[in-house]
C-alpha cells in the first residue's frame, strides 16, 4: 500500500521515540521520559484500536452474561447455580465484574483510558487542523507528470491567460489557492477537502465528549420511578407514591410536583385468529390528570409508543396485569380487601399473593389466575388455557397460616412459606365466595386491570440528541470528504500553449479521477469561451481525456 492510502493525518500515528529526542537529565528524567512516551502511546491510532478491542470484548461479556441492572433474578440464579454454567463460572464472572459490566471498575478504567487517548489524540489534531485552516499553503510541484491524474491539452490563449482563468475557476469552486509568489515556472497550486475531512473527523470525535457529559449529567439530575395503578384509582406524584424510585444525586424530592394521575380505563385486546393467537393488538390507557396548583383536570391517553408529558415529567405505559379484588374474612372480620396486581408468567397464568397480618395467626394466600378457563361442556370442570383474554376468569388460591415474616424485605407477589403451613385451597369465579375449613372466607367480587407506569424526568436528553446529531454531522464529511491537490501549468509550445492539469487525491482516488476529468473539461470550456472569437475553428481535442491512472493498483 502506498502512503497516500492513509486516511489518517500524520498526527494520528506518532513515533514513540523520535530520533532527535534528548534524554531528560536528573533522577526524574526517567519518569519524565516514560510519561512522554506514555502520552505518545496514548496518542497512537494503534492504541485506540486496542482500546476499542477491549471495549468490544467487555461488550461481548455484557451481551452473553445476564446483567444485574437488567435481569437481577437471572443473575441470582446464575450465582446460586440454578441457571447458567455453574457456580464456579459465576464466581469467575463476578471476579471481573461481569454481571454488571457497565458499572464495573474495569469498564470505568477503560472509559477513562479511552477518553484520555481520545484527548491525547485530539489535542495535536486540533492544533494541526487550526494551522491548516489559518495558513495552509498548497505546495508547488516540480514533477507534473508524476502525479496520478495528469492530462494536457493545447490552446491558443497565452500562458498568463490560462493561469488566470484556472485561478478564477478554482476559486469559484472553493479551492484553496497558493498565492502567486512569482517563482518560475508560473504554476497554479490548489488544494481542497483538507479542512472538511479532518474537521468532520474532529467533530465526530468531539461529539463523544458531548455524549459523555450529557450521560453523566443525566445520571445526576435525572429521575425515573415506577408505579402500578388499578383502574379507577388515583395516584399522586410524591416521593413515597412510587413502587420504585430512582433519582440521581442532584434530584430533590421537592422536584416532585404532586400532580394526580387517575387511570380511568385500560384497553387491551388480542388477535383471536388461531394462527397468531395471543398476540396483542391494543394497549391504551385512558387517564385523567389533575394539576397540583390550579386543580385543573384534563383527560388524555397513554399508549405504547405515546407517552404523556405532565409538568416536564414523561409518563410511559410499560406494563399491565389483571387486578382481582380479593376480600378475606377471618373470624367475622375483614382482614384484607384490596386489588391485587398480578403479573404474567410464562406458563399462561398470572400470579400474586395476599398477605393479611391482621388475622391471628397471619393469613397468606398464594394466587394463581387464569383469565380464560371456560368450563368443560360435559363435566363442567374448568379447562385451563393460556389465552390472555379475561372471558372466563378463574382465581385459584392456596391458603397458608402462620408467620408471614413481614418484617423482612420480600416480594409483594409471593409468600415466604418457611414459617407458614398450608391449610386449604380453593377456586373462584368472579362474584364467588369460598369458605375454608378454618373459618376463613375468600371472596372475589370483581376483576379490574392495573397498568404499570414509568414517570421520568430526563432533562439531559436534548443534549444527548445534540451529541448524536454531531456524531452524524462529523461522520459524513469525515468519511466522504477527501483531500486532493491540483496543479495547473502552462507553457509556450510553438504558436500555441500547452496546458497541463495534474492532481493527486489522498483518499478516494476514483472519485477524484472523475473530478479531475470534469475540471479539465471546465477549464477547456472557459478558455475556449474567452478566446472564442479568433480560435473557433482549430481548438485542439483533448490530448488524453481519460488519464491512464485508476486507483492504487500496483502492476
Amino acid at each position, binding site marked *: *500500500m502506498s502512503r497516500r*492510502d*492513509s*486516511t489518517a493525518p500524520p498526527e494520528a*500515528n506518532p513515533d514513540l521515540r523520535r530520533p532527535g529526542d534528548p534524554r531528560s537529565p536528573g533522577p526524574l528524567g526517567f519518569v519524565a521520559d516514560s510519561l512522554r512516551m506514555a502520552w505518545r502511546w496514548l496518542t497512537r*491510532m*494503534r492504541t*485506540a*484500536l486496542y482500546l*476499542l*478491542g477491549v*471495549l*468490544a470484548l467487555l*461488550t*461481548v461479556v*455484557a*451481551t452473553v452474561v445476564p*446483567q444485574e*441492572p*437488567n435481569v437481577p433474578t437471572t443473575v441470582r440464579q446464575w450465582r446460586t447455580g440454578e441457571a447458567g454454567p455453574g457456580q464456579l463460572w459465576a464466581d469467575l464472572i463476578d471476579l471481573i465484574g461481569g454481571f454488571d459490566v*457497565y458499572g464495573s471498575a474495569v469498564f470505568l478504567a477503560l472509559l477513562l483510558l479511552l477518553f484520555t487517548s481520545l484527548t491525547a489524540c485530539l489535542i495535536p489534531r486540533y492544533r494541526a487542523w487550526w494551522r491548516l485552516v489559518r495558513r495552509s499553503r498548497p505546495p508547488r510541484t516540480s514533477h507534473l507528470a508524476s502525479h496520478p491524474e495528469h492530462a494536457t491539452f493545447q490552446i491558443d490563449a497565452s500562458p498568463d491567460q490560462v493561469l488566470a482563468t484556472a485561478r478564477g475557476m478554482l476559486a469559484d469552486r472553493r479551492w484553496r489557492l497558493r498565492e502567486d509568489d512569482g517563482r518560475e515556472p508560473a504554476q497554479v497550486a490548489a488544494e481542497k477537502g483538507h479542512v472538511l475531512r479532518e474537521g468532520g473527523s474532529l467533530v465526530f470525535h468531539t461529539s463523544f465528549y458531548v455524549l459523555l457529559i450529557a450521560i453523566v449529567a443525566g445520571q445526576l439530575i435525572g429521575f*425515573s420511578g415506577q408505579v402500578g395503578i388499578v383502574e379507577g384509582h388515583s395516584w399522586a406524584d410524591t416521593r413515597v407514591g412510587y413502587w420504585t424510585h430512582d433519582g440521581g444525586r442532584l434530584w430533590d424530592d421537592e422536584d416532585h410536583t404532586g400532580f394526580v394521575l387517575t387511570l380511568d380505563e385500560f384497553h387491551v385486546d388480542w*388477535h383471536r*385468529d388461531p*394462527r*397468531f393467537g395471543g*398476540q*396483542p*393488538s*391494543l*394497549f391504551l390507557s385512558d387517564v385523567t390528570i389533575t394539576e397540583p396548583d390550579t386543580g385543573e383536570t384534563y383527560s388524555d391517553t397513554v*399508549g*405504547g*409508543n405515546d*407517552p404523556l408529558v405532565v409538568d416536564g415529567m*414523561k409518563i*410511559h405505559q*410499560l406494563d399491565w396485569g389483571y387486578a382481582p379484588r380479593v376480600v378475606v374474612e377471618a373470624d367475622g372480620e375483614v382482614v384484607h380487601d384490596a386489588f391485587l396486581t398480578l403479573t404474567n408468567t410464562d406458563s399462561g397464568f398470572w400470579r400474586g399473593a395476599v398477605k393479611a397480618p391482621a388475622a391471628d395467626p397471619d393469613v397468606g394466600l398464594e394466587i394463581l389466575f387464569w383469565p380464560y378457563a371456560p368450563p368443560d361442556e360435559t363435566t363442567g370442570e374448568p379447562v385451563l388455557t393460556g389465552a390472555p383474554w379475561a372471558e372466563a376468569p378463574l382465581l385459584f388460591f392456596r391458603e397458608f397460616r402462620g408467620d408471614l415474616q413481614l418484617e423482612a424485605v420480600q416480594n409483594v407477589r409471593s409468600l415466604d412459606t418457611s414459617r407458614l403451613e398450608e391449610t386449604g385451597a380453593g377456586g373462584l369465579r368472579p362474584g364467588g365466595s369460598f369458605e375454608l375449613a378454618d373459618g376463613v372466607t375468600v371472596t372475589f367480587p370483581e376483576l379490574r386491570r392495573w397498568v404499570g407506569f*414509568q414517570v*421520568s424526568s*430526563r432533562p439531559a*436528553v436534548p443534549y444527548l*440528541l445534540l451529541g*448524536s446529531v454531531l*456524531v*452524524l454531522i462529523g*461522520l*459524513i464529511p469525515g*468519511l*466522504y470528504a477527501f483531500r486532493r491537490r491540483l496543479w495547473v501549468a502552462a507553457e509556450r509550445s510553438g504558436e500555441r500553449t500547452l496546458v497541463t492539469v495534474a492532481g493527486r487525491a489522498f483518499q*478516494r482516488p*476514483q472519485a477524484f479521477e472523475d473530478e479531475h476529468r470534469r475540471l479539465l473539461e471546465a477549464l477547456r470550456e472557459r478558455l475556449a469561451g474567452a478566446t472564442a472569437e479568433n480560435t473557433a475553428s482549430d481548438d485542439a481535442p483533448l490530448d488524453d481525456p*481519460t488519464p491512464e*491512472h*485508476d*486507483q*492504487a*493498483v*500496483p*502492476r
Partner: protein
Amino acid sequence: MNDPQLAEIAKLLFSPVTLVAYTAAMIAYLYSMSSTVGRAEDGDATAAVRPKGLRIATGLGLLAIVAHGAHLLTWSFAAGRYPLGNMFEFSNVAAFVAAIAAITVVQWRLQRPDVVGFVFLGVLLTLGLAVLVYTEPGPLMPILDSWWRAIHVSTIVFAFGVFTVGAVFTALYLLRETAERRVAEARAGNMSGSTVGAAFDTTTRDADEDELLEVVPGREEPDASNIDEDAAAYGIALRRALARPVSVAGRTVHVPVSLLIWTVVASVPFALVFQRASAMVGIPVVALAAVLIAWWFVPSLPAATTLDSLAYRTNAFGFPLWTFGVIAGAIWAEQSWGRFWGWDPKETSAFLTWVAYAGYLHARATRGVKGRGAAWIGLGSYGVLLFTYYVVNLLVTGLHSYAGL
C-alpha cells in the same frame, strides 16, 4: 388483512421463483466474469469489452429483483403491513437491498460487473438463512407500531444489506490477496515452508517479461478464447496458490483443503445457533459450496487492491447508516420504553457491532494494520453483526425478543 390466498402467492414468489431467479442470475454473472479474465485493469470501463453474457446476466438479475419485489409486495398485502416485523422479513429485505445495490451501485455506478455475481451469492446465503427463521405473514404487536420503529428497523436492515455486500468484498479481497501474495512469493523464489500450494508445478516467470508460461500438462483451460496465455497461467497459479495437490484415483487434483477446513470450523458453531437438524447440515454444506465457488473464481476477480477499496467504500457507507439506525433505535426506546439506552442484550450487541466497525475504520488508517489486518477486522465485524442478529435474537432473552421469530 391476513389474506391466506395472497400469503400463498407470496410464498410461491419467494420459493421457488425468487430463489431460482437469483441463482440463475448469479450463475450468469459468474459465467460472464470468467469469460472476461483479460479485462483491462486500468479502470477504463468504457473500453472493456461488453460480452453478451453480461447482458443476459443483468437481465436475469433485474428479473430476480422484480420477482423479489413482487414477493415483498404481496407479502406486505398478505400481512397488512410493511415487511419489517420479524427476522425472516429483516433478512429478506436486507437481501433485497443488497441485490439492488449490486446492480445499481456496484455494476452501474462503480462499473464493477465482475463482482456482482458474488454479491448475488451473498444475497442467496442471506435468503437461505432467512428460510431458517421463516414466519407466516402476520400482524404486528402494538408496541412496534411507531414511526421511529419504521425508521430504526429500515435503516438497520438497510445497513445490514450494505455490510453484507462489504463482507463479500472483504472475504474476496482476503482470498485474492492471499493468492496474489503466494504467487508473488513463489515467483520471487523465496517460498517458506508455510506457504502451501502456490504454483509449485508451474514454472512461472515474471509477467512483465511478457513471456509465455510453460504450459502444465493436463491442466484445465478457462472457458474463454479471447485471453492471452499469460493471464490464463497466472489465473491458474492464483487458484493453485490457495490449494494443495491431492491424489484422487491416480490423478492429481488441486483442492483448497485448509480453506474448506476453516469454513467448516467457522460455520458449524454458527449452525448450532439455529437448533435444528436442517441447519446443522445445510449451513456448512452451503458455506462449503460458496467457498468453493469463490475459490474457483479467484482468477477472474479484480486485483486485491481494487477489492480492498470496494470493501472499504461499502463498509464506510454502511457505518453512518448503522450509526443512524442505532440513534433512531435509542430515540424509539426513549419514546416507547421510557429510556434511551438500557444495555439490553440487543442494544449492547448493536453497540458492539458499532465498535467493531469503528475499529475497522480506524484499522484502515493505522500503519501496519491496514490491508490484511483491517480486512480481518472487517470480516470479524460482520461476524459480530451476524452474532447481534442471529445469536442474540435466537438465544439471548431481552426486550427485543418479540422482534425475533
